[in-house]
């Protein structure tokens, strides 16, 4: 099973643990410090326990690293904040790993259930639920339109390319609105009040 042993933990507990760990990491002193070994060890242990595949971890970390390095470089520029650089780098990577563990072990609908129990407003909940449900649908629709466009259009003229990409997004919005209308009718047909 994808989630390994952690499937037995309740999603609330996992969310709370990750939040606590992130808070702990953020509040650590802002210089390389032996204390950083503690969250690192916890994360390594948890990753092994949840059977987090290293490939997945590295791939996602690499994506995040662009942002992290991009901002962290700013603290290298001035001598006043140079000591912060390493600490910030460590902190962000540890936090991203903690979040990766959460997303790996907890499907979004379970997080949604926790948010419902936390009394998140109903508008937010329904928006989040519908969004997570229809995101793959709309992403696939966008991919399909993009594939159709690239098979019909040749060359790389910036102006035409931007215009046709914008048209795809515009079409995607129109389709989303129409789909929302159909969903509403379907909801009513099923007794939604």
């Amino acid at each position: 099973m994808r989630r390994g042993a952690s499937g037995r933990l309740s999603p609330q507990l996992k969310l709370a643990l990750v939040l606590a760990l992130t808070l702990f990491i953020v509040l650590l002193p802002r210089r390389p410090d032996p204390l950083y070994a503690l969250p690192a060890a916890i994360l390594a242990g948890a990753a092994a326990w949840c059977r987090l595949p290293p490939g997945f971890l590295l791939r996602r970390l690499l994506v995040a690293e662009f942002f992290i390095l991009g901002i962290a470089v700013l603290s290298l520029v001035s001598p006043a904040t140079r000591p912060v650089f390493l600490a910030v780098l460590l902190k962000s990577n540890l936090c991203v790993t903690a979040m990766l563990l959460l997303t790996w072990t907890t499907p979004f609908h379970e997080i949604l259930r926790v948010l419902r129990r936390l009394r998140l407003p109903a508008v937010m909940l329904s928006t989040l639920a519908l969004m997570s449900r229809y995101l793959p649908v709309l992403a696939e629709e966008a991919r399909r339109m993009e594939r159709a466009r690239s098979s019909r259009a040749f060359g790389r003229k910036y102006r035409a390319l931007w215009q046709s990409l914008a048209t795809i997004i515009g079409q995607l919005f129109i389709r989303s609105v129409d789909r929302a209308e159909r969903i509403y009718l379907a909801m009513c047909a099923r007794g939604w009040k």
Partner: protein
Amino acid sequence: MHLPDGFLDGRTALLTASAAGAGVGLALRQVKRALAPRQTPLLGLAAAFIFAAQMINFPVLGGTSGHLVGGALAAVLLGPAAAVVVMTCVLMVQCLMFNDGGLLALGANIFNMGIVNACGGYYVFRLLKRLAWMEPNRATVFAASFAAWFGTVLGSVTCAGEIALSRTAPWMVTFPAMANIHILIGIGEGLATGLILLAVLRARPELVAGLGDRPGESGFGFLGYGLIISIGLAVFVAPFACPWPDGLEAVAKTLGFESRTAAPLLASPMGNYRLPFIGSAAAATAVAGALGSLVAFAAAWLLAWRLAPALAPRKENAPSGN
């Protein structure tokens, strides 16, 4: 612009989270009051739409590409309150499902991209649309395109302020770096937003103009979001941008952080520090900002002028057609 965790200290994370909470709370109140039941699924689908639109890459010079953020686009299409809710959901899903942006930095990301970018952009859109002396569709494209640039830049400035307030990097570094990059990115965002609106206007003009009274458009909405954004600017940006140090001290005092700021006050260790090449960075950024706004303005104008005529015949034909 998605801030990962680790760059903001606890205090800044708390401040941004409360600013974001106030904005989202206000938006939820307005949306709940104004949204018709049949529009309930629209918000979820709009959030999925914004996320899917962010996945489409626009080619930029030299083989690089960028994507839309969509705050201003959402605000123009759905109204400011719904846009705040939609952007908040997008950012939450990006954080919890795709690890894009940190968990404790979520408040900062919602504030920068959901509130400052979307609402800040939206009220510029409203103002420009009223001032622009053009045919309404053209005015919409022009105003939205420029507003998207403005929102992007404003959001990056608050982001720079938050990083500086956390003492991760001095303001004299974060401000020029963030602002200059986003002055460029914003031009792309503006062009893309204008082109997308044009596409929607061509196919289904009623979706842009005719959504009726959208939540948050009233004077109260303007007042509320305006207040939240200005407080955010006052807390995150003003302490660095203006020479008086008392602004932050006063805030720190009222919020009870006095003891923490007794340790070197954030601006002071590097405030007077000057590196040779960033000594005049703020001035250079101001010039870049003025230049960027001119370019964005001209691009928005050109976009509306050159491409919008395609709309006019359709509008004239409509009454006489059939």
